[in-house]
């Protein structure tokens, strides 16, 4: 077993050096320019002038305000809604359906959904068209600022709609580690109402596993760029977008401003995560007495069934909004003429698909190439680490919890640190090494973000794998190699293929990482979709957004279908 141990340490170290160290280097490479040091543009004077410049910039204040309000509202909203849905719907007839369908909702990329949703709710959107002119009385689209509103409400709404399914999935996974039904039963027999039992017993047990996802969502909402460009306020935009604009400004002096802004954003994220952590501790203290205060006399009221009804409607709303968002993309992409109040296009055409097809070839190929490479590499690395880890762990019965916690935080690091806060530093680094704009660098940059998801989707599966199968195989075949490839890998083929698809879709959705590392040499479907969404023809934009959805979907479907086909005669898998 020592050999496995040694290999595990080696590969983990290698992964850390390759993928976590760069994050730190990227941070450093951002902090130095933030303090006025960026030799490539001749800035060598260490000072806090760039930071002061950001703070006194006329856009900063309202930009930060919109960022904070949308991120906090979206995170809190999505978290509360998801937990409330769990509480209301667990054990109901919709629950098993939720468990099965939640992955489908998640499979729709944020960007494609955001664009579709914008086509729904904008003043000239589908909803307004369906209401006009009969109900609304509008014959021309009203002059309302719904999309890109200065309070970032539409951005917030889309973030909530996309993060609720994510939290739901995480909650379902967290509930897998203990018996919720029995817990509720016991609590009911002790006289607790369902909502009390849920909060005091189920939620409390779930929360430790929801903490990291919650932090990741908060950080993501604070620093999202692509969605924000499409839905967020424009003058000024959200802070991350503003930073991105500064970086991209023709005047290179603005890079210092960008770096300073990026560092401030990181500070903001850190402080908010710290506050969230403090809030947790405070709640822990405040509610510790309440937790043991005993059951409150349950009052029979019609409220319970009403709230369950509302929960179901909310769930349906989630689905309907997703389906409508995709449907309107589809309609737009086939539209040739669609005047305002008509519910459907008056003329249909394939012209825009053909047009987009001409522009699509290269980005689509790039996306698929980078996605396949990064997913394949991520799965290989993660499988190696988890295999060696499981060989070691199966024999260790105690004392690993703190080190595995640390490992988990390290793995989550790229998900917790705002991308815009270290990608500039990485860009500087790559330019210095003459690696900018190379396919290798792009795959590597994607891997930083793909690896965590890949690890998280596979970790449980590997740790739950009964190691006696592997031992039995080794005893029978007298070969570790053969046992690994002929027994363990095929037995885990289904989750591995699924994890490949997740990794692929994470790679496809990368916007900033592609923008900063590709050096303009590689367009992916995502960067093109963002570029087209702000300004180009709606119809082309719709077909690009659909492709951004379809490509990962295709991989998902394949990844589910192949193992099912291979094992179609095997009930035991």
């Amino acid at each position: 077993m020592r050999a496995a141990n040694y290999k595990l340490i080696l590969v983990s170290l290698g992964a850390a050096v390759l993928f976590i160290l760069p994050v730190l280097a990227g941070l450093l490479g951002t902090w130095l320019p933030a303090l006025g040091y960026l030799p490539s543009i001749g800035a060598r004077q260490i000072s806090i002038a760039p930071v002061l410049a950001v703070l006194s910039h006329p856009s900063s204040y309202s930009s930060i305000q919109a960022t904070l309000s949308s991120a906090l509202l979206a995170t809190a909203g999505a978290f509360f809604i998801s937990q409330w849905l769990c509480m209301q719907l667990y054990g109901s007839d919709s629950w098993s359906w939720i468990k099965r369908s939640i992955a489908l909702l998640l499979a729709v990329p944020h960007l494609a959904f955001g664009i579709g949703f914008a086509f729904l709710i904008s003043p000239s959107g589908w909803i307004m068209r369906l209401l006009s002119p009969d109900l609304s009385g509008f014959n021309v689209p009203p002059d309302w600022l719904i999309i890109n509103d200065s309070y970032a409400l539409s951005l917030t709404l889309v973030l909530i709609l996309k993060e609720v399914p994510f939290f739901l999935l995480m909650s379902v996974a967290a509930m897998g580690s203990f018996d919720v039904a029995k817990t509720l039963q016991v609590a009911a027999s002790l006289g607790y109402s369902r909502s009390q039992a849920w909060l005091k017993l189920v939620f409390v047990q779930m929360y430790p596993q929801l903490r990291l996802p919650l932090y990741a969502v908060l950080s993501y909402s604070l620093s999202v760029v692509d969605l924000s460009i499409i839905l967020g306020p424009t003058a000024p935009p959200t802070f991350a977008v503003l930073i991105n604009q500064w970086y991209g400004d023709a005047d290179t002096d603005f890079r210092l401003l960008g770096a300073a802004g990026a560092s401030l954003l990181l500070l903001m994220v850190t402080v908010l995560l710290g506050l969230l952590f403090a809030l947790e501790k405070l709640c822990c203290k405040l509610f510790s007495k309440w937790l043991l205060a005993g059951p409150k006399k349950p009052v029979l009221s019609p409220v319970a069934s009403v709230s369950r009804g509302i929960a179901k409607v909310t769930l349906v709303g989630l689905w309907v909004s997703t389906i409508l968002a995709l449907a309107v993309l589809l309609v737009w992409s086939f539209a040739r003429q669609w005047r305002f109040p008509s519910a459907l296009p008056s003329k249909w055409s394939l012209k825009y698909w053909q047009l987009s097809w001409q522009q699509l070839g290269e980005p689509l190929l790039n996306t698929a190439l980078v996605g396949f490479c990064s997913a394949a590499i991520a799965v290989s690395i993660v499988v190696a680490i988890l295999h060696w880890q499981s060989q070691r762990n199966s024999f260790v019965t105690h004392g690993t919890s703190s080190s595995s916690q640390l490992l988990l935080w390290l793995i989550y690091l790229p998900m917790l640190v705002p991308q815009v806060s270290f990608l500039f530093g990485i860009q500087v680094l790559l330019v210095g090494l003459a690696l900018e704009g190379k396919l290798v660098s792009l795959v590597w940059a994607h891997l930083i973000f793909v690896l965590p998801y890949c690890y998280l989707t596979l970790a449980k599966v590997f740790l739950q794998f009964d190691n006696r199968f592997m031992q039995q195989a080794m005893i029978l075949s007298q070969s570790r190699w053969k046992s690994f490839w002929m027994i363990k890998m095929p037995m885990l083929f289904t989750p591995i293929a699924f994890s490949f698809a997740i990794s692929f879709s994470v790679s496809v959705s990368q916007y900033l990482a592609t923008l900063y590392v590709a050096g303009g040499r590689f367009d992916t479907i995502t960067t093109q979709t963002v570029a087209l969404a702000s300004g180009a023809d709606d119809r082309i934009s719709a077909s690009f957004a659909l492709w951004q959805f379809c490509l990962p979907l295709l991989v998902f479907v394949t990844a589910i279908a192949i193992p099912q086909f291979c094992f179609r005669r095997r009930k035991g898998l």
Partner: protein
Amino acid sequence: MRQTNPIVFELQKFQLRLDGVAVFPEISIQLTAGELLVVMGPSGCGKSSLLAAIAGSSGSEFELYGKVILQGRQLCDLPMERRQIAIVYQDDLLFPHLDVAGNLLFALARGNAQERMHSVKRALASAGLAGFEKRDVATLSGGQRARVSLLRSLLAKPKLLLLDEPFSRLDAALRQDFRQFVYSQIESMNIPALMVSHDRQDCPNSQFYALQDAQMQMLNGGYV
């Protein structure tokens, strides 16, 4: 009997320690070819750990003392895949992605494809499972799975068979049936076997090895 047959498997002053504390007293056991020894003891006395240690799959937290000798070879430093010891658990651990023949072929040494398939067929026929080659293992009954699992272990031509409560998942009727099957297989393979159990009916000759006392004991309570 024991003096006349050569000793094939031997534990010499064998002991397992966990954090310096002995899991069970120092034991010495000798087995001849075709002999089955049943090890019994209260739960938690380290029966399964003993088998794992002999098979080489026990964890690094256990310290091993004494010698494990199989056909004159010291085993303690060998990795488990080179010890030529089969271990059968109450869970059959059949590989779910392979059919019955696939499971058996996996254990067979390389060689002529036809001959290998022939050995599989012969083995299945000997267990009353003729024609089961293409069956999905998930569709087998508990008793059939147990048989296939044992056949698989024996096809790897082990020099020692370890059985970790192999009958405890089976109902009473099947248990008796499978027990006879195991005994006859051990006899025909002519290898020593060590079985951990807590069912007194598993003991041949009405005697067993009491692990916590480190000596042979009669089922009626007397010592051998």
